[in-house]
């Protein structure tokens, strides 16, 4: 189930939020983490990602400088979550897109959008929405393309949400290079390990040859 939805602007100005969320402490906790999350989002960040956080997943989508976040249970299919986010992002951009980016936008100034959020959420809660997925754009929700991170790493261990695309392409060539280097180091280490033994045994042999075989 989609527990909560938040729409923020890139400069951390809240634009809209769902109002009928359960007030469980767990969810309140997640919302606080979302606020911290938003401060970590930079223009370099991945446009769609899922953050694992305890028994919830936080999915976000960035479209034209507006961040759409939804907090769902861990078992909720990611495809559905992202198609939900896409749908609300389209609707929001069409109805409020210009005003939201203006400098005079007030915090939570678009809370009237909550009606649409509520209705869309209900559609996605209904199990039959699964079958409707065929009509939706599935490329968007492809698991491989969406980056996955852990919230602990992100907030407390200095991980970042930067794009991984450049890293993955160079990974292959880098790994080959490292392999060769590693092998050479291994060899040198082995040499270093055995040279004294070899040296001592050569000297020993020489002494024996000198003493007995002359």
């Amino acid at each position, binding site marked *: 189930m989609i527990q909560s939805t938040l729409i923020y602007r890139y400069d951390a100005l809240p634009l809209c*939020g*769902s109002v009928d969320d359960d*007030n469980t402490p767990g969810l309140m906790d997640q919302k606080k983490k979302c606020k911290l999350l938003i401060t970590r989002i930079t223009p370099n960040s991945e446009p769609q990602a899922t953050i694992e956080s305890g028994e919830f997943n936080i999915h976000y989508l960035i479209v034209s400088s507006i961040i759409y976040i939804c907090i769902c249970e861990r078992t909720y299919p990611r495809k559905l979550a992202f198609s939900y986010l896409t749908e609300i992002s389209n609707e929001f951009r069409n109805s409020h897109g210009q005003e939201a980016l203006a400098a005079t936008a*007030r*915090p*939570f*100034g678009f*809370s*009237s959008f909550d009606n649409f959020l509520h*209705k869309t959420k209900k559609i996605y809660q209904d199990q039959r929405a699964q079958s409707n997925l065929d009509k939706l754009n599935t490329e968007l929700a492809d698991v491989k393309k969406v980056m996955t991170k852990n919230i602990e790493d992100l907030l407390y261990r200095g991980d970042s949400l930067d794009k991984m695309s450049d890293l993955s392409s160079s990974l292959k060539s880098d790994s080959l290079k490292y392999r060769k280097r590693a092998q050479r180091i291994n060899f040198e280490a082995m040499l270093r390990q055995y040279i004294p033994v070899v040296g001592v045994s050569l000297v020993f042999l020489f002494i024996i040859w000198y003493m007995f075989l002359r």
Partner: protein
Amino acid sequence: MSGRRRAYPQPQYAAGQPAAMASPQMNQFQQPQQQQQQYDPPAAYGIDQAQQQFQQMNIGGGGAAAPGIQSPNSGAAQVNQFQYQQQYQQPQQSPAGQTPQLGYDPYGAQPQASTGYGSAYGSVGGQAGGSAAIPLNQLYTTDLSRELPPPISDLSLPPPPLVLPANSTVIPNSETANANPDYFRTTLNVVPTNSGLLKKSKLPLALIVKPYNALKIDVENIPVTCDTTISRCRRCRGYINPFITFAENGRRWRCNFCNLLNDIPAAFEYDEISGTSKNKYDRVELNHSVVEFIAPKEYMARAPQPVVYTFIIDVSVHAVQSGLTGTITRTILESLDRIPNQNKTAKVAFIGVDSNLHYFRFNEGLDGTELMIVSDIEEPFLPSPSGLLVNLDENRQAIEKLLLDFPTYFEDTANQGFALGPALKAGHKMISNIGGKLVCFGATLPNIGEGKLSVRDEVGVSGKAKEAKALLTAADSFYKSFAVTCNSCQITVDLFLTSSAYQDVATLSNLPRFTAGQTHFYPAWTSAKFEDVTKLSKEVGDHLSQDIALEAVLRVRGSTGVRMTSFYGNFFNRSSDLCSFPTFPRDQSYCIEMSIEENLTKPVIYFQAAVLHSTCFGERRIRVMNLAVPTSPRLNDVYASADQLAITNYYTHKAIEKALSSSLPEAREYLISRVVDVLNVYKKELVAGNVSGASPLQISTNLRMLPLLLFTLTKHLGFRADRVPSDHRAAALNNLGSLPIPELIKSIYPSVYSLHNMPDEAGLPEVITTEDGQEQAVGDIVLPDPINDSKASWENYGLYLIDNGAELFLWVSGNVVPGLVQDLFGTDNLYAIPTGKTELPEFSFEESEFNFRVRAILNKIRDNKDSIVWKNLYVVVGGSSNEPIEISQQRDLMALRMWASSCLVEDKSATEPSYRDFLTSLKTKVSQ
């Protein structure tokens, strides 16, 4: 605003000469003919006096001028407004030589003063030198026993002006810098500098806060800041206000509460968006005392919630048969458009309650609702996870259909139960994650399930000291503990109780009291009476259409040295000075008691009240009200600037507290002893020279109505010693504890208008002269001036209108001229007119001008922009010596007469003395 005087009490005497002034006063009373000659132009008393004093200071360069600005005009300095009064009173001089109604002579409406409070407060600025000690309001003495009948026009005067030194505001001569008394006032407009002096004065120090003065947002015109920049002091967190001072060449500001220097935010000087520089002096928060800040996101814990109304409707047999169910559903249907719904996010839900809970589930977008009945009231649960609380706009058709059919579902019920407790819990479950209002309509005593109440035995304890404890305290702790759970979810509960039997208002009213709601009591309501239906539907409609604020908290700050100690009103006191309001109603006011912790060294101290709230259209705002009050180490100054109406409000709250904690006789004793204390202090400290033989009832002019008000408060329905049904008493006490000052004073001292001899312009729109010299009849209906609440001045052929804030009584005396009856009611026979709760027949202006004017007056009195109360009209026929026997045997009429007469609080009643007797008894108490 017609008929409202706008002058500081204009005294008749110079200070310190009470004896000499007494005689002209007496002359005046006995020789009314002389008044005609006394229409001198208004002498420079009051506000103008302050101005003149300063002018004299400037000229003379020194000592304060004597207050006796030459006018031997110890008589009235009248303005033409009053001519008509004198004229119509003269023919009424009864041969018995009764003292005529001249109480309000000394007040002259200064033409300059009519520009409003600004002139009072702003006039001081810019005249006197900055460092000279500002002469505060002068102390004038009156003798209570000579001022009979008491001058009741005092009750509609504004409080004594706040005299501030020049340059105390950032923007010099700002007229709107200091708070409007309608919003924010103190009991003492000059605060004593140390707590010893405060104790010695025996006057209370308290703030009366009324953040909203109209039910709808558009009626008020509070300036709103232009952006979300809020500048607050770093140490005390006070908001920037018109009384700060700029330091370091205007780059920083000094907080007026704690004296810390703070930075000025860049947005004050420079507008980022348009790239222009701005003038910081243009900002509204430096110019006005009441402003609204738009809150940035740091002030929001969550998205602003939508307006949520859950209606819990009694559908037991009693409610259906008395017509409550039908009336309420029809009223809600008609009010659906008036519910504040600018964002189209408002949500509603309905629960019907008898011994089961009836839920109504809406299917999104489809017509028709499902009725689901849950009989398990031990553990109320919601039968459906969604569809119970729905968006008003999107399901409008289905909601309207439900409301139309609602009464039919229950018309044959025989179920007598009313499970209010379980219904409240179910409602709470439904909206606990959003918050909002639970509005309950009940016609039965809650008798099953949690929170059930039983009838308390009244006969045994009435009249005894333990009456209050036995009948007025909460019988069940469910309501108080439920209030706590409601507060944590931002839920407010309002109750509309209409039972004709006992309904334990005392216990039930605890729930609205601690959740910032209100209890409305309609004793013996029935839909058979058209007037009852009108009253209930108008009040419910106005209540639902209020532009309430949501998720609000109130915090009051003062300068260092002053601490807020107690808080009175309908809210939940969360921590030491934070009051939480799940929703903030617009028709109540709150009282906060203060204590002086350290000696106050500054000449002016400041108070600030801030309400952080979400508006009903989804914006988070902070309404900030600022007040600056001068201080003084002299008792004279404190007494000269005490505000009697605010003091009455404070003592009302204290008396309610005393009644509920100890007993009613003790509460009455408490009020009387407060009067005695004040008189004692005045006699000992303030009367120049202890002239023995002088009357002991001397008091400051601005406090001269205080003994009357506290005395009539002891006669109020909530406190009187007669046998009063405990529901009525509890409802009266509840009202006393939450009414704003104008309504409170009217409830304590009802307004009486004499209609048979009202002036010609009363009842017609005010005539305003336009620029081209023509007179146009536009403007408000002119009301006649009120007269004293005493039958002593009544003619036995007169027509009187009594307004006690909750009802209107039209008293038609027994010997009235038949012509008047014909004009007003259309019939010649006095005893054929409809009496009791009824409305006047409507005649047009041509048919009967008198009827037209009287109805215009009634409409004007009933029209109120900041209260939802709709007053019912009761027509009473007074007794006369030649009335037919069967009339005098009608018990209803006798009961009505007694009820109306009980509103005449200056008179003697069966158990209570009259005001004159009270003053006599005071004489003995004070002389001791």
